[in-house]
């Protein structure tokens, strides 16, 4: 911007002769100062961005109230699912033969003696009641959270590994690699997800957690893969990547130092939202009887008893896992929404 006036001064200087040149030089100097002042102003404006993209995103996320509250609730669920079952041990499969079909919140008074004095407090052995076999619903619900959350997180890790690598390869190298990988993606998209999971798990007989995670990850990675490819296609042509290439950076350096950090934002959003999808999928599979085998509970397994419960007119045993499931999925979706707003404020 400052170049043009300088050029003009230089031209007029040559026309004006020696005295004019000196004058022009002074004017030029003045302009330089002005330019410097301008540069200084620009630098001052740019200063807030020194906080950095990720830090700024965290700040924006924390200002998003629903997302922060959802994160709190989700953390509570995760911590409960991690800690509580270790204290309860085998409670999730122990049968209380005297109390099958126990209703939830049935309190009776119980005397407790504390420091010589005895108190009568409301007490219940099974806070959320018991199922048809007399197993504690609370313990099963909390234990089931483990399976649901583990499947959700591990399968998403699988999505990111498979989809990330394949998408990056397709986007960066293009050509026949891109073509081959995109056709593979089309094939996997065309395969009906639940149908294939049911077919494979049916064929394996009993389903283990590992099989479940592998099957889901092997079939669901394409969304992350497509996103990654799209990111790489755009960023590959961007100026900073061209600059890095001109400086002689290797492919690996360009990919990991330059493209990957810049491509993460949409991947993170999609991955977050995807976890709730996987948890719901696991529930659907458990509901159909293709999740982890009994007596291990998962939220889907707990819900698969529906026919009996509805006939008995008791919906309580169904309500708790369903509430847990919907709450978790909803929290994850809201967190994902918050992250999207935080990472890309334009998309609001």
């Amino acid at each position, binding site marked *: 911007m400052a170049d043009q006036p300088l050029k003009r001064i230089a031209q007029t200087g040559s026309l004006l002769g020696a005295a004019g040149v000196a004058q022009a030089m002074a004017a030029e100097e003045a302009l330089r100062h002005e330019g410097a002042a301008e540069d200084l102003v620009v630098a001052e404006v740019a200063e807030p961005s020194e906080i950095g993209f990720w830090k700024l995103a965290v700040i924006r996320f924390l200002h998003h109230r629903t997302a922060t509250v959802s994160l709190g609730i989700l953390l509570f669920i995760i911590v409960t699912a991690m800690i509580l079952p270790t204290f309860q041990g085998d409670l999730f499969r122990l049968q209380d033969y005297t109390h099958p079909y126990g209703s939830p919140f049935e309190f009776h008074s119980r005397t407790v003696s504390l420091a010589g004095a005895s108190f009568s407090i409301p007490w219940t052995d099974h806070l959320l009641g018991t199922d048809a076999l007399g197993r504690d619903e609370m313990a099963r619900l909390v234990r089931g959270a483990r399976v649901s959350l583990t499947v959700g997180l591990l399968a998403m890790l699988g999505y990111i590994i498979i989809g990330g690598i394949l998408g990056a390869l397709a986007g960066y190298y293009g050509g026949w690699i891109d073509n081959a990988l995109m056709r593979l993606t089309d094939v996997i998209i*065309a395969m009906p997800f639940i149908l294939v999971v049911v077919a494979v798990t049916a064929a394996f007989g009993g389903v283990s957690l590992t099989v479940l995670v592998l099957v889901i990850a092997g079939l669901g990675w394409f969304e992350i893969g497509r996103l990654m490819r799209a990111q790489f296609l755009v960023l590959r042509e961007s100026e900073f990547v061209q600059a890095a290439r001109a400086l002689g950076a290797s492919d690996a350096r360009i990919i990991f130092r330059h493209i990957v950090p810049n491509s993460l934002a949409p991947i993170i959003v999609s991955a977050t939202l995807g976890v709730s999808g996987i948890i*719901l999928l696991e529930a659907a599979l458990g509901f159909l009887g293709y999740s982890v085998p009994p007596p291990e509970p998962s939220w889907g397994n707990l819900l698969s008893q529906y026919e009996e419960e509805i006939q008995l007119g008791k919906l309580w045993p169904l309500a708790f896992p369903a509430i847990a499931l919907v709450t978790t999925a909803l929290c994850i979706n809201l967190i994902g929404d918050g992250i999207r707003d935080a990472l890309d404020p334009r998309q609001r």
Partner: protein
Amino acid sequence: MTGFLVRRLGQSVIVVVGVTIITFLLTRLLPGGVARAILGSRASPVEIAQFNHDNGLDLAIWQQYLVYINQLVHGNLGFSYRLNESVAGLLSDHLPKTIILLGISTLVALAIAVPLGVMQAVRRNKIEDYSLTTLTFVLYSMPPFWIALILIKWFAINLNMLPPQGPQGPISTYLDPVEASALVLPVMALALVTIALFSRYMRSSMLDNLVQDYVRTARAKGVSTAGVLYKHVLRNALIPIVTLLGLSLPGIFGGALITEAVFNYPGMGLLFWDSAQTRDYPVLLGVTIVVALATVVGNLLADFFYAVVDPRVRITE
């Protein structure tokens, strides 16, 4: 345009071949094998060898695949040993029922979701938008089978208004009031999930289009607000929904599987579920291929539609 059509068709053929290879390998390479699944765990090795020989299962895997493809091209999808019926025959019974269920519920979902999405975009960040966003988020976070169960509990058990299971008779009886009322709950269950997805997309698609330059131009020309909204923005905003329809076909089929299982609706999903319980591989393979074919064709149609209405696609592709 012709180049685009030919290229897209070629890609679809490759995808279909890929789908048949994967589904074929899935059923052939699985532990136990077909013979074991059909003859049962007590079958002797001699019987298994005989069965394999009779059914061409002792050939090399690529030879089996070629035989299978040859059969497939001639319209033979295989034979269900459990149900003692050809897979094509089974599908011709069950597929139309699934198509009716999916068709009606998708139409219902679109009829509700499109106006909802438009309303949310127009009343953006107002109370209507917030409450509808909350509702769609909750619906979207609900497992489909749970929605189905709630519907059964409310409308079939508590209110005793509608039958708890889908229509059981042939399609010709669907216009009968009793059978038609049985169709209401399955359609509602499927539509509610789809409404949440479609209205969300509709909202963001409308928002994307509302800020475009052509909206300002139209306003500057003196077109009324309603005119801009319905003649310009809505038309453009509907385009991505068509692609979404094509892409969400497999997901909708997955939802149909669960809905049909809950409502005992004798469509393709229930057929698939029963076959999975009994490990009836030919049926599993047949249903998977039919659904995959439907998805490929659906995506192809969506792409063609896209290319017709939006010339930019033809150039950039």
